[in-house]
């Protein structure tokens, strides 16, 4: 069973996610969350950014300053 808190809902429906939970979920200013409504339960989940799937993708490869210079020469035939 997870942790529980009680919150008063404001007139426009706002509630505060406890700071400790925000830190655990790495929710920061600008983070997007997904809310899922099911009967009398609302689930809240941090929306994954597509870019997260890119991280680590090029770990097996290198691109040095020299590679960059050679690539530039290849494009522009300097």
């Amino acid at each position: 069973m997870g942790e529980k808190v009680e919150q008063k809902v404001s007139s426009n429906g706002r509630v505060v996610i406890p700071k400790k939970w925000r830190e655990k979920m790495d929710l920061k200013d600008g983070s997007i969350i997904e809310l899922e409504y099911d009967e009398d339960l609302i689930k809240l989940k941090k929306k994954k950014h597509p870019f997260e799937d890119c991280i680590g993708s090029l770990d097996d490869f290198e691109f040095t300053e020299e590679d960059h210079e050679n690539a530039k020469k290849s494009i522009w035939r300097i």
Partner: protein
Amino acid sequence: MPTKKYAVLDAVALFYLQKKNPPKVLQNLQQEIINRRIIVIIPTVAISEILWKLRKEGEKALRILKEDYLIWKKSNNIIIDSFDAEILEKMLELKQSYELHDEIIAMTCHKYKTKIIYTKDPKFKDFWDLNPISW
């Protein structure tokens, strides 16, 4: 609501941004992208340069780049920016000739009215008064 900041990436910055443990500056940028606190501009020329290198590495590398490219395309705070007439018109205002590649990248910064560029190349500060973020 604060205005979002824009930043342009050169090819080296773009490449290392895809690493699991890049330099701290790029780790911070990864978090800014994920938390949607920044809009990054990837010039198509930067992608072409990575493509040039990865094609030499074989099919697996090329497949990964294609997958990453599709992800960048569908991320709403990542803009893939083409070399276009707007950039050319800004280049027409330059009195002096520079390396074409650098002109395009620098004028991409001007197009998006940002001085922030992630690069290790000091020329962007010296020639165009941009604020390069290096590592």
